[in-house]
């Protein structure tokens, strides 16, 4: 124990040196109620001192007394009405700048730092997260900035004349968030057995304080006081205030100096309670992509429920999503695909690219065998859906999916009937059609939910394949621009699609079945 104390005292002394503050200034700050971590961070001190568990005001006092014992009586300018070292031991006192955020250890409350780290570790384990790293996010009430400014002004008033302070303001002062990270990262790394890294797992600490909200309403109250507040307003140069103070001005709620003086006391006022912290841990979304095939004519792509009644047996979204959700032990999923097909249209051939966005997965995606997941999905009975090239993809996958959708060509196979016999000339005629423009009015079957427009689309090529033993039925293979309504191209939609297959062949044409045979997109191909 003795060695640790020595080490810590050395760290504190080193930090005092780094801050460049004379002892009387340090004592002054301590006496108005600023905690050691805030003192060090506002004056740009870096180092392991932040993670010292026993770093407290009393420790700092004792180090100061030891080093400058004989100077104490003459040099220390103690603020009127502030507490002396003895008073500090009476009851909990919270830092007037950070309101307890950086005060992780106290006399009676020396357990506090362990609570924060221990409770966080418990939370992570309790939720069942499998992690290989973690990163910390901190959110603090913005009022803290106002408190910092009050301390600066206080120091300026009392020590501004001393030249060694002139260049100290703002150069290298560390924010509360960074200081908190310095303080607990090492302990957390030990407890969670992983290192800090900005990857998928995040721990968020949200600090709130009841006074913060009342101060904010004060600020907002003064804002509505008639005159306009500008952030970069007319710089009122009051006496003794220069440009660096106006910099705080910009951050502090866009109020001018007089307003801030009214709301924020100099030095900052004391508070009775510390900030309360809420800890949340989550994982950033995991993206799983691939191509799917749909073999059923009674399964929709996404969940389709009208008036509480489900249309179709099930949906591709649910089949793929539910299984992925259970393997990754996640909270929820979102299904995106590059285009869609009707419920009675099969998706065959190369498959349609899709993306599943998994929220808050508990398992590590790098430890997941996606080949296994693909097998599981493909082996589900009944065989409705098949998945290919399933793997984890990056965040940009969604953009790639959206970009390709409108440009790419799609290939179909349709079972067509015509009102007369199919002749060889018809086959030739259809094969000779290349890059034909058609105009489609919005089909009546979707007109109730889409705009009435005339859409120009292109048929790239067509090929008819005779069916053995049938004169009027045949299979039509065609390749069209994305967004073409194939059923309407075949039967004409009461003449609203022109030209249509019937007008090309000079007879009536009906479509019985449709299958998508290829979605020509350059993604998820392997």
């Amino acid at each position, binding site marked *: 124990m003795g060695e640790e104390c020595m080490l810590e005292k050395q760290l504190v002394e080193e930090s005092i040196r780094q801050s460049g503050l004379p002892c009387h200034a340090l004592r002054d700050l301590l006496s108005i109620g600023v905690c050691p971590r805030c003192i060090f961070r506002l004056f740009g001190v870096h180092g392991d001192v932040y993670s010292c568990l026993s770093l407290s005001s009393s420790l700092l006092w004792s180090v100061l007394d030891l080093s400058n014992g004989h100077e104490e009586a003459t040099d220390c300018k103690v603020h009127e009405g502030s507490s002396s070292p003895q008073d500090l031991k009476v009851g909990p006192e919270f830092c007037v700048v950070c309101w307890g955020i950086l005060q992780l250890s106290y006399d009676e409350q020396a357990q506090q730092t362990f609570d924060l780290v221990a409770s966080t570790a418990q939370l992570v384990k309790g939720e069942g997260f499998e992690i290989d790293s973690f990163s910390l996010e901190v959110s603090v009430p913005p009022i803290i900035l106002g408190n910092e400014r009050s301390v600066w002004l206080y120091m300026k008033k009392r020590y501004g004349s001393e030249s060694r302070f002139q260049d100290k303001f703002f150069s290298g002062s560390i924010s509360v968030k960074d200081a908190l990270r310095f303080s607990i990262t090492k302990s957390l790394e030990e407890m969670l057995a992983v290192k800090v890294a900005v990857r998928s797992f995040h721990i968020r600490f949200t600090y709130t304080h009841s006074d913060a909200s009342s101060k904010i309403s004060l600020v907002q109250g003064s804002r509505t006081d008639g005159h306009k507040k500008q952030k970069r307003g007319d710089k009122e140069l009051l006496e003794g205030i220069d440009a660096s103070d106006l910099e705080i001005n910009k951050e502090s709620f866009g109020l001018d100096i007089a307003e801030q003086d009214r709301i924020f006391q100099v030095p900052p006022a004391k508070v009775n309670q510390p900030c309360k912290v809420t800890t949340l841990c989550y994982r950033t979304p995991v993206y799983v992509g691939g191509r799917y*095939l749909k*073999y*059923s*004519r009674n399964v929709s792509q996404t969940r389709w429920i009208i008036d509480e009644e489900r249309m179709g047996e099930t949906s591709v979204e649910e089949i793929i999503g539910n299984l992925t959700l259970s393997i990754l032990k996640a909270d929820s999923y979102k299904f995106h695909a590059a285009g869609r097909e009707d419920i*009675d249209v*099969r998706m*065959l*051939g*190369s498959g349609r690219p899709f993306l599943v966005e998994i929220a808050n997965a508990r398992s590590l995606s790098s430890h997941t065998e996606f080949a296994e997941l693909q097998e599981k999905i*493909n082996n589900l009975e*009944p*065989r409705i859906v*098949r998945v290919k090239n399933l793997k984890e993809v990056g965040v940009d996958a969604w953009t790639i999916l959206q970009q390709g959708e409108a440009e790419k060509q799609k290939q179909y*196979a349709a*079972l067509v*009937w015509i*009102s007369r016999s199919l002749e060889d000339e018809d086959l030739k005629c259809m094969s000779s059609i290349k890059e034909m423009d058609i105009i489609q*009015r919005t089909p*009546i*079957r*979707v*007109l*109730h*939910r*889409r*705009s*009435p427009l005339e859409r120009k689309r292109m048929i790239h090529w067509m090929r008819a394949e005779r*069916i053995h*033993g*049938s004169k*009027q*039925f045949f*299979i039509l293979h065609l390749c069209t621009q994305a967004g073409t309504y194939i*059923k309407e191209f075949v*039967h*004409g*939609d*009461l*003449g609203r699609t022109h030209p249509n297959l019937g007008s090309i062949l000079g007879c*009536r044409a*009906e*479509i*019985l*079945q*449709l*299958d998508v*045979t290829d979605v020509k997109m350059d993604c998820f191909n392997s």
Partner: protein
Amino acid sequence: MTDAAVPPPSPTLEEDSEVELRRLLLPDPNLLILSPPPSAVDSNYVHYFIAGTSLYPSPFCFSCLESYVICKLVDFLKPGHDQYIYRHANGLCVIGLAPTHASLSEGGVTSVDFNVGKSDRSEIKVTGKRKKNAQLLEPNSALCKVYASDNIYIARCCIKGSLLEVNNRLIKEPGLLNSSETREFATQGVYSPRPIWTSELYQDGGI
């Protein structure tokens, strides 16, 4: 489109994808039996036959009634001015002249004019998902004027609703109405009816 009577062949995973595709695309023989198969217009729409009341209905109108599901008699149509309504499952209706309409039997329609006095129905421009600028019309509102050998017939809207579009092709090609093959293309207009009308229909026609 018809549903397959037999469940489609289930895929096996070991097959090469090209081979599998060819096998899956082979049509079910049961589908090829029906010739002609039900047309898209027959299977996607409910057909209503609208006729004017008359004590002596024309004998022609009963023969074609087989293809209609429901017949509705109204008082704002003169006898012989038979029209049809095709109602889609999503509620939209397509209006047109029935094959037994008087104008069609006299040598044919010579021209169609959508200008019915107050406004020209072919000039409407409906935009957007909410179908802005669609005209709200009454059942007895005039839809268009049909000219056939010195007679002028007025086609009515037959339902209360918003007119979404009219068939401009009829202005240039009124002959579409005359031949039975192209009559399908000779619809007069597409309507978005008010919900109340559908319940009226159910009460009168009976389901």
